[in-house]
């Protein structure tokens, strides 16, 4: 019973990811697997961003930099150094974590809007740097040799394996998000979000806590980057550091409910569903991003707590199950 109480907030999130993981197998259509992968990737990225945005209260407009940087490092190791996929994924995650640590020590001293501006700068600076960095292929990036997939049973099998690794990474992101949310460290982050000065007076070493929140929010995106570009077969600066993807992540987290474990999952789901409709609709296909922008505006104005936050406020009973 105690175990149930302790982990019941995890039930709904894990269920969503598990269903996504088995859905393509049940329906047997490869197209469904691609849709499911896109949603799992969005869940992993949004849940990671939520640690910084939702728990700590720092808006990062450039979170995709960790996806791109980790992806580049992993693909370089895989392709140039002949590392196996699992080791490259780990290395990509660690590289992004290290980048976040170094960046965090420098820019987390900024507060509010200044931090958000700095994160945009970081993403653009990284894109420009990689564009000139010959080791990573400069503007043309790195293309994987087709023979790489042989070790994973050919291209088709490699795609299947990538899908399951994607599901595992989404679960990992959830687990990190949940553990942070329910830990003492997480309580400290929430206190920083509410009032950083008061938090420091109560003994929370804010610079340290913020830096580690940033690192934790960067690791899974780095790993997802490696996996995505492995599956994709190549990586180039434009695909690795798309600023609009950072903003889409913000929309997902805000839509579902920042600061909750389930919120970003729901947001990722809803946003990807909406996006799927918009890009195929003849009316909206060219203004898909404008719709996202308008949606973000509406959320901020009318339901700043997001869907889950709104439900928690209205229906107190749900607080027990919606973490």
């Amino acid at each position: 019973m105690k175990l149930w109480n302790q982990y019941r907030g995890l039930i709904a999130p894990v269920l969503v990811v598990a269903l996504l993981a088995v859905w393509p197998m049940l329906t047997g259509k490869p197209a469904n697997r691609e849709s499911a992968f896109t949603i799992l990737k969005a869940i992993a990225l949004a849940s990671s961003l939520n640690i910084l945005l939702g728990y700590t209260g720092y808006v990062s407009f450039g979170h995709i930099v960790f996806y791109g940087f980790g992806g580049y490092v992993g693909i370089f190791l895989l392709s140039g150094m002949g590392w196996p996929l699992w080791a490259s994924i780990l290395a990509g995650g660690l590289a992004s974590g290290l980048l976040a640590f170094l960046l965090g020590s420098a820019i987390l001293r900024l507060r509010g809007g200044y931090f958000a501006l700095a994160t945009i700068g970081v993403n653009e600076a990284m894109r420009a740097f990689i564009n000139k960095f010959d080791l990573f292929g400069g503007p043309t990036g790195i293309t994987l040799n087709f023979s790489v997939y042989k070790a994973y049973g050919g291209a088709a099998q490699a795609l299947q394996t990538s899908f399951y690794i994607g599901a595992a990474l989404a679960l990992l992101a959830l687990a990190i998000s949940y553990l942070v949310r329910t830990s003492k460290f997480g309580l400290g982050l929430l206190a920083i979000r509410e009032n950083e000065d008061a938090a420091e007076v109560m003994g929370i070493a804010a610079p340290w806590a913020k830096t580690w929140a940033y690192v934790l929010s960067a690791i899974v995106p780095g790993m997802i980057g490696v996996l995505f570009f492995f599956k994709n077969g190549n990586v180039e600066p434009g695909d690795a550091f798309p600023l609009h993807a950072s903003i889409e992540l913000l929309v997902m987290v805000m839509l579902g409910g920042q600061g909750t474990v389930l919120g970003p999952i729901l947001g990722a789901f809803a946003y990807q569903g909406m996006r799927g409709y918009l890009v195929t609709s003849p009316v909206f296909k060219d203004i898909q991003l404008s719709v996202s922008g308008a949606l973000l505006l509406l959320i901020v104005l009318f339901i700043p707590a997001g869907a889950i936050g709104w439900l928690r406020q209205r229906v107190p009973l749900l607080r027990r199950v919606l973490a």
Partner: protein
Amino acid sequence: MTSLLSLQGVSKRFGGLQALTKVSFDLPEGQILGLIGPNGAGKTTLFNAINGVYPPEEGSILFRGRDVTRFKPYEHARLGMARTHQIVQPLNELTVRENVMVGACFGHENHSLGQAARIADEVLEFVGLAVRSEQLAGSLNVAQKKRLELARALAARPHLLLLDEVLAGLNSSEIDGMVQTVLKIREQGVTILMIEHVMKVVMNVSDRIIVLDYGQQIAEGSPQEIAANQRVIEAYLGDPKLAESLMEEA
């Protein structure tokens, strides 16, 4: 008597404004030291200098025998210093219990979440907020928020408690309740430095009083000495008869 807190020549300047000029005092363990003075005299600035929010430019601060002059606020908290704010600083979107747990988790006793929850419940009972523990802190009224400030500070089980006008904005029955609470805290052996404008309370509960005016320490002594001090009457108390009547009430 060993002193828990000792200030030597502490000065603080904001641009052209000399906010504190060479403030020095010793606060022995277990005592209540009252800090009074007109608005803008530098009382809250002195608190900010003591707990590291605005470290002083000159002078030194010793806390439990250590030089903490350049310490950050969270380092002070970890050494066992806790404070309340004149303008309440609740963590609005967290529950009352979570607010208090933060105090217990990150104070010098460094409790786990489970222990912190137990301490929070005890402290909330003590300050009379137990029935509100599941409410969001933002939904409390001013008097309750003042109590929450106090509860958070107490949950850290501090060696030194800095109270910044915990009575301001309370009505007279709320003041009586809060004074009883402060006296109970003192009985537990916590040393207290308090800023207060409600004179009969300061005169009543303080062992000693320091008076600040324009950042200068113009007097220091027992409540009786302060009430009879000519400079203090001119700068702050105003009317000598009022001073006398305050002493009688006390």
